[in-house]
């Protein structure tokens, strides 16, 4: 077990180091921030002072070494635009994104699993078919378009919900959250639903496929033969068994949901990290872009690591096969 753990953590650190190099080089290859930052009225002395202050006069390898050295100490650089540590600026925005992602996760499970099981149990009914057709829409329509349509219907035509922003927040354990106030909740519903749509479609398809598979298993047949009520069969035997793959996939998808809520946050003017990323890209604020990407890399790799470790506990075959290989 310990061998497996050490190996797995080592792999994760290696992946983070490789990503740091790629991200840094990639971001530093585009454009020249000075052209965007400095007022066009500025003279050469101003421009050169800015270049020197931002460290852009150094050769790339030295900039990289400085970055890598600072990153090891947890310092991901100072934002060109805000003049403050990039990580601080992102951390300010993190709670808003986390909240959005978690609510979206809850929505996608709470709606996705029942719908998927229903479609799996009754695959040939009109209801089952419409659920599947709906999930195709969830997959194939672009996220921003879904967001705009949600705004158009629920904010503009019906006027039930606000079109964007975060609304009122209250403090909970030192973090500002909006799901505890009515006003905040109304602001949360549309963006969370928008973010959930794709994952929900994924959950529906996964749940349906697994339900159909599980229903053909001997233990279901046996349960039926024993005369258990259909309700008990579905709630206990089917649901338990389909949840394993659903939880695995959602664990992995949560990372990408946090990292890539960009589109939803932009459409709904949600003050999270994704919107910050877009604004930073437009301003070529390299330290913020790099810090953001590094943070998402670390989040995703950590989630992967945790999922793998949990798996190895649940299913010893995983770690045994790895050790042998």
């Amino acid at each position, binding site marked *: 077990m310990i061998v497996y753990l050490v190996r797995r953590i080592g792999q994760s650190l290696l992946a983070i180091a490789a990503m740091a190099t790629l991200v840094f080089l990639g971001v530093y290859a*585009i*454009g*020249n*921030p000075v*052209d*965007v*930052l*400095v*007022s*066009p*009225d*500025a*003279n*050469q*002395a*101003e*421009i050169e002072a*800015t270049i020197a*202050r931002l460290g852009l006069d150094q050769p790339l390898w030295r900039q990289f070494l400085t970055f890598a050295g600072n990153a090891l100490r947890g310092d991901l650089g*100072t934002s*060109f*635009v*805000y*003049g*403050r540590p990039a990580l601080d*600026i992102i951390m*300010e*925005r993190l709670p*808003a994104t986390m909240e959005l992602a978690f609510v979206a996760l809850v929505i996608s499970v709470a709606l996705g699993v029942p719908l998927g099981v229903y479609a799996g149990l009754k695959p040939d009914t009109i209801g089952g078919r419409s659920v599947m057709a709906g999930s195709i829409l969830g997959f194939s329509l672009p996220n921003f378009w879904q967001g*705009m349509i949600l*705004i*158009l219907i629920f*904010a*503009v*035509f019906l*006027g039930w919900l*606000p*079109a*964007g*922003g*975060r609304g009122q927040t209250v403090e909970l354990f030192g973090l500002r959250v909006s799901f505890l106030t009515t006003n905040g909740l109304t602001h949360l519903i549309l963006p969370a639903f928008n973010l959930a749509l794709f994952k929900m479609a994924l959950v529906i398809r996964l749940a349906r496929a697994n339900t159909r598979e599980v229903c053909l298993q001997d233990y279901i047949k046996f349960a039926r033969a024993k005369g258990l009520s259909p309700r008990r069969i579905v709630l206990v035997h089917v649901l338990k068994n389909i949840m394993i793959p659903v939880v695995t996939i959602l664990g992995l998808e949560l990372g990408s949901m946090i990292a890539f809520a960009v589109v939803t946050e*932009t*459409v*709904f*003017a949600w*003050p*999270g990290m994704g*919107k*910050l990323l*877009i*604004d930073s*890209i*437009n*301003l*070529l604020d390299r330290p913020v872009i790099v810090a953001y990407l590094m943070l998402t890399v670390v989040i995703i790799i950590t989630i992967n690591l945790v999922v793998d470790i949990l798996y190895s506990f649940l299913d010893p075959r995983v770690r045994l096969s790895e050790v042998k290989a």
Partner: protein
Amino acid sequence: MNSYSTSLAAGLIAASALAGGASAQQLTIGLASEATSMDPQFHNLATNSQVRQNIFESLIAQDALQGLQPALATEWEAVDDTTWRYTLREGVTFHDGTPFTARDVIYSYCRVPLVENSPSSFSIYTQSVTAMRAEGDHTLIVETNGPNPLMPVESSTIAILSADAAGAEEEVVFNGEGCEGMGTVPQATAFNDPAVSVGTGPYKLVEFTRGAQLVLSRNDDYWGEAPHWERVVLRPITSAGPRVAALLSGDVDLIESPPIQDLPRLEQAGFNVVDTLSNRVIYLAPFQEDEAPSLTGTDGANPMTDPRVRQAMSLAINREAIVERIMNGYAEPAGELLPPPMFGTSGRAVDPYDPARAQELLAEAGWPDGFGVVLGTPNDRYINDEQVAQAVAQMLTRIGIRTQVDATTASQFFSRRNNLEFPLYLAGWGASSGEMSSPLKSLVATYDREAGMGVTNAARYSSEELDTILREAMVTIDDEERSRLLQEAETIALDDFGILPLHYERSAWAMKPEIAYEPRVDQYTLAFAVRPADASAGD
């Protein structure tokens, strides 16, 4: 869609009439971009400037046409070529109740170069000042290192802070050697705190939540005309679609820069749309040195060094068609670098559309079969920029100059443009000073890094005559004489077709029918200038 939007309009008007009583004292504005800091001296950027003017004022203000108006200074005059006298307004108090005096002005000017990590410093507007001294509390003498006719304009960009709230010593001195008595200078983040963010403006800072909102409350002791709204919320909504949706759904009362294709629909739905000519000209710049990149069919020569070729390009462009078809009328064909009658314009006629004459000129210049050129353009910086470039490319191709558009995002475009990667590019210039020396100095003066001339002249146009006249204009204090010199310098560049103006953008605002806003050429959205549509409504 029509019947929908009519019923939508009816619904919205009914809804806002109902809500009128409760929210009449609050104004919510959807801004297209967010201020990067609450420190009014941190970042020289229009986005920050329009926000800070609610809280911090300058000695001089710019009105909707960028004319200079008294603000914290009631009068200003040049005593001689290098000395200015400002008479300061009496009876003005800061938000914390302390009176405004010359000491605050000296402190504010002294602080500008001391702001750390500024992405773009305001010191370009203060570096000509060598000393300041107070004659009593309300007279200020300013000395400059040479004649600087733009001194009043530059005063309108510097926010005046409260020396006391910032922690200055009893006496602040600004003489030839620098500043003394500054105490510990607060840095940008300190200004998120309303106790430090103390100005004399019509609004006080209540709360700034980055990315979400900025809340202001009315300064009831304001010296000037009191603003109408008790509370103002400024919300950054950076994407155009969601900004329009926020207005339609009643989340916000007013939005800036709505997309022009949505304007007819907004008007149909009963919203107020106002627009005005902006100080921004969209222009084409043909590269004018011998070695031009990305040209084809020229055997290494650069035909665009010949003024006749550049004139042909100008005549080939149907500016009316671009304005009507691509800009939906929200632009005006341009004949100059700044829309007349702004300071230093000459009222020059727009170049006509004459493709036949253009072809003749090309033939005369020795290029009867034309040549191939790449047209660089940003695709997210100016209104419909890429579409305009595509239209220009087709028009040039029609007279034989085979033009290929290379459109990229603004941050990429500006870097590549400054590296001289484009033989021809489309860009825009907004004269923040509201007068002609700004575009002349940056766009057509001979490129000179050290002197800060021609910094944006990536076409490398150069005329010694223009440089001489412009240099003279920049040290001429007399307004009439300076205006004449600027006109003369501009005429040289335009006669040479050194730069080809296309159109002036119009900027628009959309708002609920109950409120009114006077559109501004500098495109600023100033909360205190938003009024109820008629005086009886709204309260």
